[in-house]
């Protein structure tokens, strides 16, 4: 006696034989094509579905370009400000040199220019040699230093502060 699954298998085999006979005729006879506008609508929807992924790359590109622009603008502004400040300090030094008739003039030198200070002052003074005693602790200091120009030919750091 055959079990239920055996019956199913036998029935399935019998069906498959008939299917082989009918398949070609069924596919030819019962196939039909969608309207062209349906195919077009599907194509369009597929393109739109894909588009956002492409747009994502564009958006990332735009964001990167905007960030670059902001960074560049910031850098330009900061550089401009720094140059302006630097020029103002340089002008103050120039003024100090020209005014050195015995009066005391002080200038604030930014800490990153402290090591250039001797040669710069030499150039401004138009002198070959000058003694500028800048102690080591001043060169190593991160703070801006204050210099007093006390005479026409001599530059010295205030003795009471750095001496």
């Amino acid at each position: 006696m055959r079990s239920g699954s055996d019956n199913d298998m036998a029935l399935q085999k019998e069906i498959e034989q008939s299917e082989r006979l009918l398949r070609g005729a069924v596919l030819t006879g019962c196939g039909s094509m969608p309207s062209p506008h349906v195919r077009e609508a599907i194509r369009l929807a597929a393109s739109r579905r894909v588009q956002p992924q492409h747009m994502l790359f564009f958006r990332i590109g735009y964001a990167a370009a905007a960030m670059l622009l902001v960074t560049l603008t910031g850098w330009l502004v900061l550089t401009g400000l720094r140059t302006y400040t630097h020029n103002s300090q340089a002008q103050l030094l120039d003024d100090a040199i020209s005014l050195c008739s015995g009066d005391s003039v002080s200038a604030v030198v930014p800490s990153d220019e402290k090591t250039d200070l001797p040669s710069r002052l030499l150039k401004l003074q138009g002198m070959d040699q000058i003694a500028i005693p800048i102690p080591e602790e001043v060169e190593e200091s991160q703070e801006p230093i204050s210099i007093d120009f006390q005479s026409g030919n001599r530059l010295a750091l205030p003795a009471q502060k750095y001496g």
Partner: protein
Amino acid sequence: MRESRGNLKDDELLNAFRHGDVQALDELVARYQSSLHGYLRAMTGSSADADDVFQETWMRVIRNPGSFRGGAFNAWLWRIARNLLVDRLRRRKPVVSLDDADPDHASLIETIPAAGHQPCEEVEETEIARRVAAAVAVLPPDQRDVFLLRMQGGLSFSEIAALRRVPLNTALGRMHYAIQRLRRELGSVYEVLVNGARNTEQGLKGKRTDHEIR
């Protein structure tokens, strides 16, 4: 490029579409358009309704290709199409279930108009294909549904049983009854098919024998 897509499997094409290849989806639609649209047309009895459900089926695929979890793509596609078909019919007849087994009420699927005696009249086919299509169109809707899911959708009986939410032997039974009925409807045409298959088989055997002799 088109040829290389033609060599890809269905799931590979779907995956390519997920990664932005629109042509891959076009290839998939081209593969299934005749059989899927034919199934929908046979089940709705209208080209316009078949167009609507066909379009919505592919829209679902386009919108949510990630819901395909592997397995047979055709089974997934037919499941979407059939669910949409059921929804469409339910909207028309909101009270009655498609698979209602209540003997006092006709099941909703039985209210689907048959595709008529000329379901595929616009398509040029051989006389046999026309006769077969006409015979399929007059099958009872439950049998027609299982028959077309199997023949056009290429679904296995277990997939059909799961889709129709019926036991496996019910799906097999409906297919068996459908084939028996088609045999009766087709009569001499079915004999032509049987003889044609027999001749082809004999021809193949002859060729094999010739080959073996050589």
